[in-house]
């Protein structure tokens, strides 16, 4: 029997032996001097990439370098929303693949990531918004995904405690819903991928910050790190938020990315209050909320409206998000905040990501996740691993490259134009 595998039997057995038969979930590895592949960034995208390199491509002489500890960056600084309600072809295919992976992720990783398909509800406030949403959700349905358009009565029956009052600044007239969307436990995703990658022999190296790239002509030969020089045949960057810093180390010039900051909040634990993920966006307001399994209301809103590398949010956004919360769910007005955090994001010029080759032939880029990194992480790892293993992009991610702007090809889901701060 594989003693490291979690099962009903392992729970039963540990009950008999005073819980002493559990092993470490994953090793805290020391760096070796050389690997076939190094993934920089031990976030969800980096860990998922390592796992799929081993599982899908049989490549396990791989290291994941993390400057802090895994789960400590944006993996722990998000609102854990999972959905695929995208309309544009590239996003449609990519995020649907990600949602499909989420649906079997706990079994695949042998780790309960607590994926909960509780549905995602986007509130509608005007007939024109309803028309636009109907078009979007019909496109999703035509491409094999799920989507529903709810009238006001259906919405009231499912979520009775929203502000339906006549004095609401933006009266609710209905909603679009993706029933297969939902939420997962962010720490479990990080640990699940780390443990599963570790079981293939992949080294996860924490407290290992990359300080420079070793180059030999047109190739990268290794990385200078806070734990010494580590050589590698191939290097993948998965450091969203800090991509431009590593890009400068590689002396590759500019990127179609700006680093912006997004805050999120969690309240004190409450009894079950909200069964779905709820999104509210109208007239400049932007708000999304769900309830964690521990009872905390997890919510967020707009980004901090100016470029920043500081993992620290500003106060006007706290007020803005609190106003949104109480306008949609007035019952939250006296709930206290428990914690609040900010993460730095790669905001790209069209709101879509990059999973692509770079001007250095054995250096690969995974970046530009904007607001959507958490839900994307399984497919991001899947296709990034495929790109590195086969040295060519899968057709699904062919347009997630750095050259798309020069082709006049924007994947601008919001239609916001080439301004990073607008792609929330």
């Amino acid at each position: 029997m594989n003693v490291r595998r979690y099962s009903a039997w392992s729970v039963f057995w540990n009950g008999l032996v005073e819980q002493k038969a559990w092993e470490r979930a994953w090793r805290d590895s020391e760096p070796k001097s050389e690997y076939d592949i190094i993934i920089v960034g031990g976030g969800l995208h980096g860990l998922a990439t390592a796992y799929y390199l081993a599982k899908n491509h049989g490549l396990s002489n791989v290291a994941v370098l993390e400057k802090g500890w895994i789960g400590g960056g944006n993996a722990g600084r998000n609102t854990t929303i999972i959905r695929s309600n995208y309309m544009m072809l590239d996003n449609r295919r990519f995020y649907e693949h990600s949602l499909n992976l989420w649906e079997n992720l706990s079994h695949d990783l042998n780790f309960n990531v607590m994926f909960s398909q509780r549905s995602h509800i986007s509130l509608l406030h005007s007939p024109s918004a309803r028309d636009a949403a109907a078009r979007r959700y019909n496109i999703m349905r035509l491409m094999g995904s799920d989507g529903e358009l709810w009238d006001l009565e259906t919405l009231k029956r499912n979520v009775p405690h929203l502000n339906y009052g006549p004095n609401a600044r933006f009266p609710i007239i209905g909603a679009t819903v993706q029933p297969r969307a939902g939420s997962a436990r962010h720490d479990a995703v990080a640990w699940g991928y780390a443990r599963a990658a570790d079981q293939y022999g992949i080294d996860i190296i924490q407290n290992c910050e990359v300080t420079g790239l070793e180059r030999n002509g047109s190739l990268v030969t290794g990385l200078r790190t806070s734990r010494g020089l580590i050589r590698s045949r191939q290097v993948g960057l998965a450091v969203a938020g800090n991509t431009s810093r590593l890009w400068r180390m590689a002396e590759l010039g500019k990127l179609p990315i700006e680093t912006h900051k997004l805050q999120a909040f969690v309240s004190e634990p409450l009894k079950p209050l909200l069964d779905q993920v709820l999104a509210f966006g109208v007239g400049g307001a932007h708000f999304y909320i769900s309830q964690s399994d521990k009872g905390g209301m997890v919510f967020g809103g707009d980004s901090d409206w100016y470029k920043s590398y500081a993992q620290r949010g500003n106060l006007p956004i706290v007020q803005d998000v609190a106003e949104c919360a109480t306008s949609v769910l007035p019952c939250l007005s006296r709930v206290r905040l428990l914690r609040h955090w900010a993460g730095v994001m790669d905001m790209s010029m069209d709101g879509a990501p990059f999973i692509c080759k770079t001007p250095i032939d054995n250096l690969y880029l995974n970046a530009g996740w904007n607001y959507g990194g958490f839900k994307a992480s399984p497919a991001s790892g899947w296709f990034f691993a495929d790109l590195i293993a086969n040295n060519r992009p899968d057709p699904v991610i062919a347009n997630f490259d750095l050259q798309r702007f020069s082709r006049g090809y924007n994947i601008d889901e919001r239609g916001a134009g080439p301004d990073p701060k607008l792609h929330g």
Partner: protein
Amino acid sequence: MNGAPVQTRNSTGDTCTMIRIHCPFCGVRDHSEFSYGGDASVEYPSLDAAVDDWLEAVFERENIDGVQFETWHHLHGCRMWIVVERNTNNHEIHSVRPAHKGVEDALEDERNSDKKG
């Protein structure tokens, strides 16, 4: 001193930063009065410039972690555009000036005539 982050403490004792921007026309104001423009080092090429020049100006960014020049709009104040020299790691502001050189010169002339008067 044109403006500085004001350090306060939240309920858990962590410091949090509130930026104040010294608008050259209105004085020191909270940054929630301002909207962010973007990287002020970007210079748009002439209308008949090569496509690659426009591509770089519109889509490519240095994304500096450190002190950068950036444009802000005093949207909820005098509605003037200003250039702010700010550290993107800690939000410290080093200088603020009007975005338009002509306006900056006019302000300077006015200050000089005030001194003389």
